[in-house]
């Protein structure tokens, strides 16, 4: 696998993955407008402004994306929230784990990050992977997300010092 800074013409790929209801349920967006907005921020803003959005390639196929939501604020530059997503048909093949390991290296070496953190909804199976890869839970934001049917979901907060 190789990792390259994401380009704006890949925004539709990310948006199409996020549009899959099985994936979207792990993100805070709810409709196409929000998905397009989030995809533009992910690749368009963070990729362009900070060079911190990456595309994961397997041969000629895009199999994943990750990004760091870097802050322009000096006192916050040592830490970052990140997002990661794997091609819906490429799950369970170790791509997520390998990408996570690469992501940690890049955060530290390319962006000087010493504290990496993430947010994951309670039922998300990826939580197990994050724990196995050394992330620790530091908090739970109870009832953070409200689904359209009125039910609430908790957000688990995880971090790792690099």
């Amino acid at each position, binding site marked *: 696998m190789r990792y390259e800074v994401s380009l704006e013409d890949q925004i539709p790929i990310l948006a199409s993955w996020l549009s899959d209801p099985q994936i979207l349920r792990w993100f805070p967006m709810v409709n196409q407008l*929000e998905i397009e907005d989030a995809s533009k921020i992910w690749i368009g803003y963070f990729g362009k402004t900070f060079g911190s959005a990456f595309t994961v390639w397997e041969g000629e196929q895009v199999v994943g994306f990750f990004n760091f939501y870097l802050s322009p604020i000096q006192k916050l530059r040592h830490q970052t929230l990140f997002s990661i997503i794997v091609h819906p048909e490429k799950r369970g093949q170790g791509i997520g784990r390998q990408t996570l390991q690469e992501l940690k290296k890049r955060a530290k070496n390319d962006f000087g990050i010493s504290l990496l953190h993430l947010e994951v909804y309670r039922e998300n199976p990826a939580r197990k992977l994050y724990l196995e890869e050394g992330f620790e839970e530091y908090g739970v934001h109870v009832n953070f997300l409200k689904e359209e049917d009125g039910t609430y979901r908790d957000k688990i907060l995880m971090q790792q010092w690099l």
Partner: protein
Amino acid sequence: MFHDITKESQFDIRYFEEKEAPILKNHLLNPLIQKWFPLSSEIDVDLFTRNWVNFAKHRTAITALWDQQPIGFGAIFLLPYKKVAIHTMAYLLVDPAFQRKGVGTSLMRNLIHLSRDFRIIEKVQCEIYQGCALEGILKRLSFEKAFTQEGFVRFSEFETSARIIFERSNKIEV
């Protein structure tokens, strides 16, 4: 010593006006105020002030006045996506010469009321750093600690501080 000035006739709170942005910026450049925000340069302050002004266009920012002069500012920052728009983050600051006079409590109480104008908002949150005097106000107004993240803000190479997120339900009366 604490002296509540908010019942006096010279005190008022109204919506923030864009022309007050330079006063807000000056306060944010004051080290006594700035230490409680993740800001350390004029660029940081400009960015934060710009955000404040943008949210104010949605009538989400207020100004506390004494003799018609701004002495404190408060704002709620709205979240963009529907599933999480039930939360809002509140910010406030008070001129150091007017601190411990009930201004911060009054601003926060007004921000809570303001959040209720947005029917979707169910909870108000406030992020503070360790040692911030605002913690007392939050507890008085029924905010509860949601979580703490160690090392979130870095003041120098060797000094970091936790961020503490407080939140309160809008179901609770102010």
